[in-house]
């Protein structure tokens, strides 16, 4: 299922929780939504699903707005569990079987067993991680075309976290679209094909993880003294930011690192290095330029 979010806005009084968000999520993609706490990730999910009324903008699914006929094809796992405490695990599965025609109860039971959970237990006796696992197992048994998973690995141990990521890969391999949020950038980096970074409700960055890594680099150079000119390099659109610390300059390059390196050399820089960035670095530069800068200066 292809999703197009266009100029989505959600205001709570004067506070803009989601501010003019436009993103396209192609069919069969695993799409990671990243952002600091309060960046608007959960609000975006709620607006997409009609659980919160958007203040503006549109969301379409294969070109059509949300309609009851789509409910069977979309599954949402909220961050906070909403499962009935007094139910047994097996009863939660049964409730899903009755509610959704495409639901595969045997698949849900099998997944719950692989998480090592006893189906006779009552929900209230389970840990937070186990409740997450139950919600996720039921979601993956829905045969949905779109899965929206808010922190689907929270509270899980590393083995079960990997298990959930593998299930997401499986869903994408059969053509489903998976949209998930996570604070664990390593997981997003591994499983997501594309990411969007939200910051204060605004889209700070969007793209393919592999392309972002291939393009974004830091180029570092050392100049003979503190009064050097970068020959107008700071105005170059391929440059995201320039950090100067005495004779050392570090340039965050959005594209064309090799060319920027040559130009720094031409400007008199020595010891020119091109440094790879992982997704965590890319994320930090996108959401908090100031603190990322502080880290860089301390690192020197």
């Amino acid at each position, binding site marked *: 299922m292809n999703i197009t979010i266009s100029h989505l806005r959600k205001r709570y009084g004067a506070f803009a929780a989601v501010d003019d968000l436009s993103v396209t999520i192609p069919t*069969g*993609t*695993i799409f990671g939504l990243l952002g600091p706490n309060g960046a608007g990730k959960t609000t975006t999910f709620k607006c997409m699903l009609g659980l919160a009324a958007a203040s503006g903008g549109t969301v379409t699914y294969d070109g059509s707005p949300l309609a009851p006929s789509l409910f069977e094809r979309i599954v949402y796992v909220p961050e906070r569990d909403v499962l009935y405490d007094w139910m047994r695990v097996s009863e939660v599965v049964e409730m899903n079987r009755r509610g959704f025609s495409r639901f595969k109860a045997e698949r849900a039971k099998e997944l719950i067993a692989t998480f090592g959970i006893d189906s006779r237990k009552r929900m209230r006796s389970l840990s937070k991680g186990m409740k997450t696992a139950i919600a996720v197992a039921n979601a993956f048994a829905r045969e949905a075309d779109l899965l929206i998973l808010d922190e689907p690995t929270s509270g899980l141990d590393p083995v079960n976290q*990997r298990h959930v*990521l*593998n299930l997401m*890969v*499986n869903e*994408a*391999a059969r053509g489903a679209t998976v949209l998930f949020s996570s604070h664990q950038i*390593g997981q997003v*980096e*591994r*499983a*997501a*094909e594309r990411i969007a970074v939200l910051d204060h409700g605004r889209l700070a960055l969007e793209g393919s*993880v*592999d*392309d972002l*890594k*291939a393009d974004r*680099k830091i180029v570092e*150079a050392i100049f003979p003294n503190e009064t050097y000119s970068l020959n107008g390099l700071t105005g170059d659109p391929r440059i995201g930011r320039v950090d100067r610390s005495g004779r050392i300059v570090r340039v965050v390059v959005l594209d064309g690192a090799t060319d920027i*390196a040559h130009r720094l*050399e031409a400007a008199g*820089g*020595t*010891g*020119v*290095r*091109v*440094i*790879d*960035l*992982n997704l965590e670095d890319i994320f930090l530069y996108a959401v908090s330029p100031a603190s990322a800068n502080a880290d860089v200066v301390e690192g020197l």
Partner: protein
Amino acid sequence: MPVVLTVDSRSGVPIYQQIVEQVKRSTALGVLQAGEQLPTVKQLAVDLTVNPNTVARAYRDLERDGVIETAPGRGSFVRGDGATSSVKAAASDVARRSLEGPVREAKSMGLSREDLHAIVSAVLDRWFPEER
């Protein structure tokens, strides 16, 4: 499938590129032989816990580079000639890419072309002693 591929998702090197280079290396070392079948996109995606589109992208690059061929409905196979002709090119690619950074840095630290030639010669002498 005898080839064990691994990806370092924390690395700054794109995952599809890591897969491409490892398959080329396995082919060069004879771990993957002509005619051998690669795992399906879905299988490799699950094995590595990376999304299927990234694996598909790596397979497209490998096909473009003449290392594998894909028969619709049957899967992807190491090409008969892929195991020999493209391997040297692949190894050259990896070597060139690995040398790029150190050469740039050495140059920018003031070493001349001759200085670098001397270093490379010394390294070559160590690894190809019979050809000295």
